[in-house]
């Protein structure tokens, strides 16, 4: 280990840390503590008085059938989004890895969608598949498929999953391309000499060696689907039709800012926070063990 550098100034380090600390305080610790505080309070309908109710909000939220339904929606949505985003990104990365001419050009094209804001991504898909004016909706109906995501729950769900996965593919693609580049070419050549065809090489050599990347992306994508897809859902379906696409994050927003039930909403966001922490802890414990190969 290199020797520690000692600075004589006692205040300067804190001053340098201050901006970052201030931002974290204002935008994370303060709202988080507010949510914690609100989650144990109940407000009357006119907002005139609040009472301390302990864990009653949590009890209420966890016993609501609509909350359990939202948990199910979230799990379906997250698993499908993560799965589709990872599988398609892997497929594209493997394809892009084979291109020799214009490699950089293709890669840049693949990475672009990541720069699109979630709400814009949602709108793009909404326009394409809007039952009244969407090009693809028109084509689907012309092919005899009764396409109407505004009324049909599963169709609405597929649409938000498609939009959410599409947006995440770029990110995954980037990691898979890097992962593929990290596999020594001689390994693939050795496998070829060992008589493994292309498919066999993929499943016995490339895929196992990409496992750390895939696992990392699985956790990241699940977290993404859980929390960062609010904009897409808000733009495409608004949680509907009915409650079909109301994920946990969307329900926090709906109950709190639309229905103004702050106690319930705060309790939900605390539960969500626990889920984030659990997911992150799981990731750190597990990824760090798996990452060191070869």
């Amino acid at each position, binding site marked *: 280990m290199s020797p520690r550098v000692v600075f004589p100034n006692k205040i300067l380090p804190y001053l340098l840390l201050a901006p970052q600390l201030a931002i974290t305080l204002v935008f994370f610790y303060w709202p988080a503590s507010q949510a914690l505080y609100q989650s144990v309070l109940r407000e009357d309908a006119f907002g005139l008085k609040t009472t301390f109710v302990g864990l009653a909000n949590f009890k209420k939220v966890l016993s609501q059938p609509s909350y359990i339904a939202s948990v199910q929606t979230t799990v379906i949505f997250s698993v499908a989004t993560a799965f589709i985003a990872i599988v398609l990104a892997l497929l594209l990365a493997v394809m892009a890895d084979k291109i020799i001419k214009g490699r950089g050009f293709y890669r840049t094209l693949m990475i672009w969608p990541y720069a699109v804001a979630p709400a814009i991504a949602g709108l793009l898909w909404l326009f394409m598949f809007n039952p009244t004016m969407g090009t693809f909706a028109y084509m689907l109906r012309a092919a005899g498929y009764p396409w109407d995501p505004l009324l049909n729950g599963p169709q609405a769900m597929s649409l938000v999953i498609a939009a959410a996965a599409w947006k995440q593919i770029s990110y995954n693609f980037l990691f898979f391309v890097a992962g593929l580049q990290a596999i020594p070419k001689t390994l693939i050549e*050795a496998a070829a*000499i*060992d008589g493994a065809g292309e498919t066999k090489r993929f499943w016995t050599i490339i895929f196992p060696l990409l496992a750390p990347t895939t696992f990392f992306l699985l956790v990241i994508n699940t977290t993404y689907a859980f929390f960062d897809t609010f904009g897409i859902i808000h733009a495409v379906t608004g949680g509907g039709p009915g409650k079909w696409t109301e994920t946990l994050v969307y329900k926090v927003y709906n109950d709190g800012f639309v229905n103004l039930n702050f106690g319930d909403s705060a309790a939900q966001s605390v539960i969500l926070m626990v889920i984030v922490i659990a997911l992150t802890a799981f990731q750190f414990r597990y990824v760090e063990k798996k990452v060191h*190969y*070869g």
Partner: protein
Amino acid sequence: MATVDLKDVRKVYGGRVEAVKGVSISIPDGAMCVLVGPSGCGKSTLLRMIAGLEEITSGTVEIGGEVVNDRGPAERDIAMVFQNYALYPHMKVYDNMAYGLRNRGMAKDEIDKRVREAAATLGLADFLERRPRELSGGQRQRVAMGRAIVRSPKAFLFDEPLSNLDAKLRGQMRIEIKNLQKTLGVTSVYVTHDQVEAMTLADTLVVMNQGLAEQIDTPMAIYERPASVFVAGFIGSPAMNLLAAKSSQSGHILADGTEIAISGATLPDSGREVLLGIRPEHLTLIENGAAPDLQLKVTAVETLGADTLAHGHPANGESRSSELVARLPGSVRVRDGDLLPLSIDPSMVHIFDAASGRRI
């Protein structure tokens, strides 16, 4: 087991860069052919063309008498040992060795028998359950060898297999590879830039330079009669002294005016520009006071223990173009500034044409 024949093999990249410019080599069954040369000389490209990892632009590669140009690496029945070993990091040693056999649909107990046999031969029996990262460099190298020998292929291809090992282990593995190759009697092509490996391992040595085979012969024949200045400078350590000179009636006159009298050797036409090649070990110190062929003014000394290398230039010249190295016995004490009387064995002097670089 099989012969390997290359006929006028060429490799052109992108229609412009010629990596291999027509090489023909015929390797008899069971022989070890070593391709040696500086980096970028095309030796690895040539090996990869034999393996089927690189397309052959023109010419033919025959393994066992059959042209294999259009066959994939798996169908050529060869095994390759890579410089970085290319072991599958997620598989145990056992599975690394069994992988090629499983892909070929061999029966389980036959695979087991072969892997255990190879592991016993290579001293890997205790490591079969380990993963490559838990092995030392030498052990990894053995696994790579094991993966090649379990298949009993027609030919082994080695791509600088020892360059990732430290000096001591390299010497040890060199002997192991040689013994293994002789025991198994499998035709082998071995690529290296290390001339010690090249000299010790080869039955047939191919010295390559700029995409061409400069000389193909046994190692000793190449050492004794290098066909060109390039081969002369590449094979042998320290490298052969090459001195620019002009032929005269009585011998050769170096650029700095020193005359080297070489009696007995066939002399080229008078006045011809030549390069004189004299190996450091063929410059001997005169200790009985006889007339020297050359006086060496010592400018640097390297004492290696068994040998002492005296660097310097002819006594009456200062020209840097005629720097020389003499390899003297380790018992000789030499210091900077000494004047050494040296004799040259005329039968050990190589004369090359200065313009073409070819042997005269």
